[in-house]
């Protein structure tokens, strides 16, 4: 199977996934609405009582974190779509076709990245409306967006892998609950420096924190940390973490898809 035909097959499957959203747009719309709600809850309800180490406006600190969190929460949608699909007859036919075993996962990845790009545009427009500003240069802002989608791309494969492996309702629900503590144990909402030392350590090494911190730096928003890896090497870590995740879960997903029992 050569790479060109695998890409062409992935493209065809991506168009199919996008067509699903066009016919039944509620799932992606709800995903975006949910993130907007989180921004409002944390920005206005809780934000007033949070003080940042190193100072700065909380809403400006929160927005880049929310972008990164939205990228992470996207893996739930990926996982659910893959889990539902793998139970349906159409997956059975995909597997009987002479196509690459990465075509279905890669098609999903393309569609979900497109969805997340739209979600980011909506979130950023919303952020600008309520006073968030991207203070960096154009190229820095573009790099930030690239890093966000890079995180989404890497976590997508975790979602695909989990969707293929945990096809039962129970497993999917467990992940839908677990993303919350994992998402919160990061620099998204509060600075790791304000946490107990061991929690702060975990939060600082959360891949979501790295991407959030890198975006804050590139958008010129308050960092919320005054030392440690997030203050000094955020962009580098935000590049490496997703690379590690993708290197692990791309092959695992392709293998899980091949092994999907009939």
């Amino acid at each position, binding site marked *: 199977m050569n790479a060109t035909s695998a890409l062409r097959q992935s493209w*065809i*499957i991506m168009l*199919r996934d996008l067509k*699903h959203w066009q016919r039944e747009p509620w799932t992606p719309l709800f995903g975006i609405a949910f993130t907007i709600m989180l921004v409002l809850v944390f920005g206005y309800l809780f934000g007033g009582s949070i003080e940042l180490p190193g100072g700065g406006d909380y809403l400006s600190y929160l927005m880049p974190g929310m972008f990164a969190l939205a990228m992470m929460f996207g893996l739930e949608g990926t996982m659910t779509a893959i889990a539902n699909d793998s139970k349906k007859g*159409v997956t059975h*036919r*995909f597997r*009987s076709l002479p196509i690459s075993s990465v075509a279905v996962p890669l098609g999903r990845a393309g569609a979900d990245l497109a969805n997340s790009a739209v979600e980011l545009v909506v979130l950023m427009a919303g952020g600008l409306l309520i006073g968030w500003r991207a203070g960096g240069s154009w190229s820095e802002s573009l790099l930030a967006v690239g890093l966000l989608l890079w995180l989404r791309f890497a976590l997508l494969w975790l979602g695909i892998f989990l969707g293929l492996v945990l096809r039962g309702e129970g497993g999917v629900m467990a992940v839908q609950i677990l993303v919350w503590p994992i998402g919160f144990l990061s620099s998204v909402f509060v600075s790791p420096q304000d946490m107990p030392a061991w929690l702060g350590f975990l939060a600082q090494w959360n891949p979501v924190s790295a991407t959030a911190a890198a975006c804050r730096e590139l958008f010129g928003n308050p960092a919320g940390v005054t030392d440690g890896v997030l203050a000094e090497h955020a962009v580098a870590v935000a590049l490496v973490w997703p690379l590690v995740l993708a290197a692990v879960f791309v092959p695992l997903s392709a293998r899980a898809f091949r092994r999907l029992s*009939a």
Partner: protein
Amino acid sequence: MTLAPPLKARGLRKRYGGTYALDGFDLTVSAGSVHALLGPNGAGKSTAVHTLATLTRIDEGEARVAGFDVATQHAQVRASIGLVGQSAALDEILHGRENLVMFGRLHGLTTSAARSRAAELLEALDLVDAADRKVSTYSGGMRRRLDIAAGLITRPAVLFLDEPTTGLDPRGRADVWDAVRRVVALGTTVLLTTQYLDEADRLADRITVMTAGRVVAEGSPAELKATLGGDRVLVGLPTAAVAVAARDAVATAVPVDVRLDEERAEIVVEAGAAGGTAALLAVVRALDAAGITPTQVQLREPTLDEVFLHLTDRPTTSDRTATADGGHR
């Protein structure tokens, strides 16, 4: 030139846990024919199809599809087959036509070739009116026909139909039978699995009867029915006691197998080589001579249960493990 058989399997074995789903399965299907795999639930029919379609790896034995080895030439095998499974392998949200175009493109057709092939198949399988509606609005028979169309996109050498009419209403079954005949007319070799003897009889040139993962009989429908003791005469009687008397009266008058079901107060007579009508007349004469008036008399084909009673001395209702053990006798 002699055409190599498009399907050939020898000694296939596939183990799931402690049970062999296939236990020394052999099959040869000649080009352009319809071959039916007939057997009860759990006989290994679907496993046989899945191994031939490279969806399931075989543990032992060898099989060739269109000349390609199923163990080592997955891609070539997949390119030469169409597979229609038990549940419709379709995208519910896409339209019928969109499904066909998508599968055609995934098979490597250009978009315009996929479009024209889709239009041809929608026409051939009588789905033109429903072509631009979501598949989720289709009836069972329509889904199955679209499924068959999807299996035919690449003009495969062999089309596998796994229980194509299971779960369909009578109208849907008739539609699918019609579709299968059209497919055969296009020159495709068809391997279909079924639990229904009448379906195999109507559609197949040859039938392989299987149970517990192995073949118990093989032949044309006429050959098989002859070995199964031909048609059955079923006689309903007012009470169990009268049924016993009727059994005795028929058994002494006619030299054939008579089975008594006291619970349902009926007897079943195997027509044998003489043929159904002759047997029916003989049974009626014997009952008349004994002064017994039946509540009903029917001539019918053997049921699958009777086929298996005959071939394996075991009804189809036995559980999987028991039939699997039975396979080793």
